[in-house]
């Protein structure tokens, strides 16, 4: 073999190795979720195939006893409101900062910039007291307010796009008698569609997967989101790996479907979101 062929083989081997490392833990969980209690207890090994590959009993147990329906409902509600709010707030902030000059504009920009440097996890001890004093503790409004209030990344994404919209469009509308709100609603907002798509994807996945905030702020049993409800499996099902696995697969599956359907947008969204 030539040197080039060897290099090529090594490259493919490394890719196959990485694929195995990624897929093996996930695949085993899918296998386990299809096994019966006896099969997992007998210690036949993690890699053996289930006796009945169409045994969905564990999924029924996980879905019903794990309260997954409530969890998906709560997650959907929080997701819709906070992503919608983030889009509105982010686009309004970007519009105000880019299209107007006003006193204290520099200060406002600095406030948003500095806030981007403060990781949310560090301030939760004190944030908790504020959420509590506002009477939002243990309601779905606590995570919603926190998700909407601290998303600097989306403001930044919107800002990039507002800048790219020619000011002449604002001007033409203004000559036709439109005021600032009409311009925002009829011109700026519709033209922000690509940015909105990015923010919806990045924010949506972040909210769907978040554990920390619902865990701290919504301890009630009936206020579980998918993360916290799945986490509660740890107690009652501690030794029942087949049920826990089914729960994990139930939570991962929607992500996989969305990922396969929107692959291209998701890559772009994360590149834009994370690099700002």
């Amino acid at each position, binding site marked *: 073999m030539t040197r080039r062929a060897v290099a090529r083989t090594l490259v493919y081997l490394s890719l196959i190795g990485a694929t195995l490392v*990624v897929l093996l833990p996930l695949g*085993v969980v899918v296998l386990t979720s299809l096994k019966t209690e006896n099969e997992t207890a007998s*210690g036949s090994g*993690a890699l053996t195939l289930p006796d009945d590959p169409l045994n969905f009993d564990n999924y029924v147990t996980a879905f019903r006893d794990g309260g997954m329906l409530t969890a998906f409902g709560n997650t959907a509600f929080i997701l819709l409101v906070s992503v919608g709010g983030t889009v509105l707030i982010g686009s309004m902030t970007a519009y105000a900062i880019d299209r107007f000059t006003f006193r204290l504009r520099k200060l406002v920009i600095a406030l948003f910039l500095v806030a981007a440097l403060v990781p949310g996890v560090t301030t939760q001890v004190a944030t908790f007291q504020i959420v509590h004093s506002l009477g939002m503790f243990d309601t779905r409004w606590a995570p919603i307010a926190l998700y909407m209030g601290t998303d600097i990344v989306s403001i930044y994404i919107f800002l990039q796009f507002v800048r790219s919209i020619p000011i002449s469009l604002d001007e033409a509308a203004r000559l036709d008698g439109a005021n600032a709100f009409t311009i925002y609603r009829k011109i700026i907002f519709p033209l922000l569609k690509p940015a909105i798509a990015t923010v919806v994807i990045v924010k949506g996945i972040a909210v769907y997967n978040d554990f920390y905030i619902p865990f701290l702020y919504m301890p009630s049993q009936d206020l579980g989101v998918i993360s916290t409800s799945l986490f509660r499996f740890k107690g009652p099902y501690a030794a029942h790996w087949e049920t826990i696995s089914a729960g*994990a697969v139930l*939570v991962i599956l929607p992500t996989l479907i969305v990922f396969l359907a929107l692959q291209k947008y998701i890559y772009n969204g994360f590149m834009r979101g994370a690099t700002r």
Partner: protein
Amino acid sequence: MTHAGTHTPARDTGKAGIRTVAPAPGRADPPPAPRRARTWRLLTPWLFLLAPLTLLITFTYAPIANMVAYSFTDWDGVSPELHYTGAENYAEIFTREDLFQVFWVSGYYLAASVIQIVAALYFATILSFSIRFRNFFKGVLFFPSLVNGVAIGFVFLYFFQDGGTLDTVLGLFGHHSDRAWLGTPASANVSLAGVSIWRYLGMNFVLFLGAIQSVPGELYEAAELDGAGRWHQFRYVILPGIKPVLTLTVILSVSGSLSAFEIPYIMTGGATGTETFVIQTVKLAFQFNKTGLASAAAVVLLLIILLVTWVQRRLVPDDRVDLV
């Protein structure tokens, strides 16, 4: 970042004909207007900023201010009474060994991020050249970063379990290990840091991939004409081209390592020496009601992260970090 660059010029290439009609409102001197109209104009931007600024101050700046104030007290978070104790909490953090230990745990995650960045860089480079099944490999590497943290925690609890996935796989190769992977501090932390590599590699990989693709193609062609091999192309074309993203990743990794929480909390609950800074703070504040001490710990973490950010900005001035 790369996208920011491509969008900015659009402003100047817009409908050039109309653009000359008038300067933007407020950007130049506005014509004299009746008083009411003028008040209205001054007020307009603030109406747009009302909700965002309220949220920002309530949920970011007010907590920071309160947190600094709490950190000098012995408050338990519930009782109406709190006493000013000076810098006592801070002294406790740096002198009590059991509290300080969490910093050493960050070391495991820090080491993991080095491996993670190198691996992500490698995969991003090879997958930016033409390779069969490229999109499949891209998807596989990226997918874990979209998966729910609790689900990942459970997947890997099973993975490291006695007789779980890892033991079975090792058994296939004839290596019958009989160890509890999460049983001793060192092996538990290595295992947890490994999970964090598994989870976050894809994110770094996609960032690098995007940055590499934004390097102009002519540069590769030129390099190839000059007889540069793959290594030289990487060293002299790709690496300089993605420097901003690389430094950003390094700083995100440092703050990520310091604030590791989800995976260790879900998998071990901080047992067997795997307690991280954030787990400790959450426990202090919400289990042991030591709000004062927890606040001091959080202030220390915040200061470290800000310091790292500041040092990084000084070392690699990034001209594109401007909101204006």
